[in-house]
């Protein structure tokens, strides 16, 4: 294809690229940083609408797919079906996956701006918020994000070593991540062992002493951030009963008629579970040995040390809150001045993820953990865009990220087509990037290389009746590629 177009340009009297040392490529050169859903969906849009474009997707890890691989719970494999769509995109001849290459470390933003017409930052949010309260550095207070990374094989989290010898866990936060970690802690081991959960976490969970998991939120049932499907799963979890505080539900039934269907159905289910549980649930809960305990209107004020295990958390001091103003989904709370202590041996903090600037040139709002941008155009950097959680904040499931990424794709497509991005001056794209990486001794991983890792993981899983056994160390992934 390239030779034909080079001949054409020769025929038109254009510079003799046949004889050049091929320092540039035809068509818009686009690079995407971060091979998760946002990166893949924006790529999908651009290769569809710009037939001449080349898109290179850079990824810090040797393996693609971001939170679809590392965030989605092991017992939700159908959510990961999107990987098939992403694989199709990656296999397009104009798309190149470049794994094991890190923005800020192996390539700078300035270099990418020089080599590509457009740079799209979609590397998500790989850190999480902390509470900033006394005692937060006590042992066994962990981020839920890292706990998820531990059971999902995120390189770097395999040695988290959560101490599961306690019988009570406090999960702080009431989003889907909080529900996921609660579910993994409360599920019967048989439920987990034929999923792609990592071997080391399965081993630890099989010895877990955890019996109670509290899910603690500052606000009320009407403001709960988790979604109904995940709540239903918890209410039906084998061997586990759901225990609510009826007082938390004052005023909730009165609120229901005024609200839109999604919030209404969720709140109805919550209220039913708390105030009038179905006979079939009650029957199952009678013999349950474990419990799931959502607690509302409590905000963590301090962590208290354990009296038996030095240096480890023993309890959380919770400030009692109450809602301000009229009940609504977005209502705020204030502290009443009262407190309640709850004993626990493990705390999982699940109050939100946070992004970081991978490169010093990226204008960043550190308070919100988001790149400063206007509709996806990064402030002050023409030709640089951002999308997904890095641009919108770390909230949303696949459908939200998809919508955002397609919108960003349309914006960039428009910018290229109307000349806002001057794609007529040729840029070298990967031709040059490969040289820089080579000089630095960076081993870039291609999509075919990933397929080798993928196959190896599936083979290892087959032997033990799991869909795959994830490889959790980067060096081992690179060894598999090298073989």
């Amino acid at each position: 294809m390239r030779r034909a177009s080079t001949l054409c340009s020769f025929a038109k009297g254009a510079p003799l690229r046949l004889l050049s040392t091929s320092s540039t490529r035809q068509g818009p050169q686009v690079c995407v940083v971060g091979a998760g859903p946002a990166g893949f969906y924006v790529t999908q849009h651009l290769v569809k609408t710009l037939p001449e474009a080349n898109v290179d997707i850079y990824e810090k890890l040797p393996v693609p797919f971001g939170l679809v691989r590392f965030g989605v719970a092991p017992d939700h494999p159908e959510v990961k079906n999107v990987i098939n769509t992403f694989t199709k995109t990656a296999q397009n001849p104009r798309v190149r996956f470049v794994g094991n290459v890190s923005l800020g470390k192996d390539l700078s933003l300035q270099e990418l701006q020089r080599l590509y017409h457009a740079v799209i930052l979609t590397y998500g949010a790989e850190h999480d918020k902390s509470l900033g309260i006394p005692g937060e550095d006590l042992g066994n207070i962990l981020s839920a994000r890292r706990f998820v990374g531990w059971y999902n094989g995120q390189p770097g989290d395999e040695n988290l070593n959560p101490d599961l010898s306690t019988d009570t866990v406090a999960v702080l936060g009431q989003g889907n991540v909080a529900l996921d970690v609660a579910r993994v802690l409360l599920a019967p081991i048989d439920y987990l062992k034929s999923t792609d959960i990592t071997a080391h976490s399965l081993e630890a969970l099989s010895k877990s002493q955890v019996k109670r998991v509290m899910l603690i939120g500052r606000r009320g049932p009407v403001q709960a951030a988790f979604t109904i499907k995940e709540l239903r799963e918890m209410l039906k979890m084998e061997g586990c009963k759901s225990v609510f505080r009826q007082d938390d539900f004052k005023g909730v039934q009165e609120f229901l008629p005024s609200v839109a269907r999604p919030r209404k159905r969720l709140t109805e289910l919550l209220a039913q579970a708390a105030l009038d549980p179905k006979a079939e649930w009650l029957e199952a809960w009678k013999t349950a040995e474990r419990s799931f305990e959502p607690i509302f209107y409590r905000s963590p004020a301090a962590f208290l040390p354990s009296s038996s295990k030095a240096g480890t958390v023993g309890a959380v001091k919770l400030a009692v809150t109450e809602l301000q103003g009229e009940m609504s989904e977005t209502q705020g709370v204030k502290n009443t001045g009262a407190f309640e202590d709850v004993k626990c041996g493990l705390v999982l903090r699940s109050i939100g993820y946070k992004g970081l600037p991978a490169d010093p040139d990226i204008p960043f709002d550190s308070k919100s953990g988001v790149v400063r941008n206007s509709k996806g155009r990064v402030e002050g950097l023409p030709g640089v865009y951002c999308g997904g959680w890095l641009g919108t904040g770390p909230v949303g499931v696949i459908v939200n990220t998809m919508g955002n990424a397609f919108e960003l794709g349309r914006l960039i497509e428009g910018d290229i087509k109307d000349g806002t991005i001057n794609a007529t001056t040729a840029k070298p794209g990967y031709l040059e990037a490969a040289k820089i990486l080579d000089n630095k001794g960076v081993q870039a991983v291609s999509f075919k290389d990933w397929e080798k890792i993928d196959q190896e993981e599936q083979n290892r899983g087959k032997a033990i009746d799991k869909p795959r056994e994830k490889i959790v160390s980067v060096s081992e992934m690179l060894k598999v590629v090298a073989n």
Partner: protein
Amino acid sequence: MKTAAACLWTIHCRALSLSARQTGKRAIRKLLSERLSASLCRAAVRPQLAALLRSTSSTLPPASRFLSTSARLMSQEETISVTFIRADGKKISAKGKEGDSLLDVVVNKEVDLDGFGACEGTLTCSTCHVILSKEVYASLARPTDEELDMLDLAFDLTDTSRLGCQITLTKELDGLEVNVPASVNGARQ
């Protein structure tokens, strides 16, 4: 609650009774999403079902219909016309067979709807969201809680919204027109 074995047998029978034109894997995945709402059932049968999925060939042999509990024969021909109206106004028509879901039609006929059916019909996303007319909506069987749970996360949800992977084509639906909402597809206002 059904035992794992009972689940498997029911699914096996139903799988065999489906039309041979449907790809085996999609048919079984559809059954999985319909049947496996109980967590335990899902966990216990998953390895066996995974094996069943792997072993299913791409088309089911018609001769195995003798195990079907339903005597109704489904048409092999693509006689049912569906029109998808995108948010940007473009209308795309395609034909499907009885028993196809709307998602099947989009996939089989490569209907140009970006992002439609991300989870491949397993009721774990809301990207096949379509909006029906009041009459058509009322004529269909009520959506299950499982479908509503995912539909609740869709953009631009309406009272006549459904997930396309849960709508099965029948002769009565010939000429069906559905709106595909803005946010996943086409220009957003």
